[in-house]
């Protein structure tokens, strides 16, 4: 099945993500990132943030937690081509983020093996006050059927 423009604007279910200390620590440790802003409470308390923060790519983990998504995709044809994060403020430990994924674009390009489709999925994250904190933007390359 090829995708068509009717998918643009489709949204996934809204969900809530709590940014937890232990999760951020495990994530930073997996990367081998020893920045004390992620794990050292005394250091973080003295910083401009006043509290522990999350590493930049932790936003991907938040964005991929989403509920059911309204498009059926063949995972064998999917390639993660590009990833982007737009931050309106730093994500901090203790944030409760209200998230929703939406299909923000679909476009095509001619490739060696036929027409490649590019699907742009945005997960928007808002805090409890309704302010936008970050957007995780995933560009999926959807390869032609073999």
């Amino acid at each position, binding site marked *: 099945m090829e995708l068509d423009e009717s998918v643009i604007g489709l949204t996934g279910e809204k969900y809530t993500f709590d940014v937890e200390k232990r999760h951020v620590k495990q994530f930073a*440790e997996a*990367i081998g990132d020893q920045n004390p802003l992620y794990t050292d409470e005394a250091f973080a308390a003295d910083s401009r943030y006043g509290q522990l923060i999350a590493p*930049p790519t932790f936003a991907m*983990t938040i964005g991929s937690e989403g509920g059911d998504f309204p498009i059926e995709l063949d995972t064998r044809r999917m390639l*993660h081509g590009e990833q982007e994060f*737009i931050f309106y403020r730093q994500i901090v430990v203790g944030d409760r983020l209200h998230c929703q994924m939406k299909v923000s674009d679909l476009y095509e390009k001619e490739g060696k093996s036929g027409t490649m489709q590019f699907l742009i999925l945005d997960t928007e994250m808002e805090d409890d006050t309704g302010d936008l904190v970050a957007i995780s933007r995933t560009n999926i390359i959807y390869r032609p059927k073999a």
Partner: protein
Amino acid sequence: MAVMTELEYGNLREGQQLEPLTKPPITKVQLVKYAGASGDFNPLHTDDEFARKVGMDGVIAHGMLVMGFLGEYVRDLAGTNAEISGFKMRFGAMTRPGDTIICSATVKKLYSEAGKNYAELDLQAEKAHGKVVGWGSAVLYF
């Protein structure tokens, strides 16, 4: 804090190459840890037998782990002087356990907007032998 000195806007110039960050070689244990921490349990990253069935020599690293290395680098550069407003990466060659990734950056553009100073950085993640595994960029404000 970390291995490198955080940036100061006044010391930057366009075209400047910043001190790179060399990560320790990727291990299989690290891929298991990253799977657990990120929730990406695609067996391509943790199960050699599965990876061979789909035509690989063995497991490959999560692209997002390599982006995580770049994120570590950018956050270190920002230090406590700057904030990250944008960060992106385009994924190139595959990375395997044993590969050493070197993160590097060049100052692409410096500009001021609404009372803030911005630095746009071009980022690269390459394997020790010079093969680029990802291209990226980040925008910092001071």
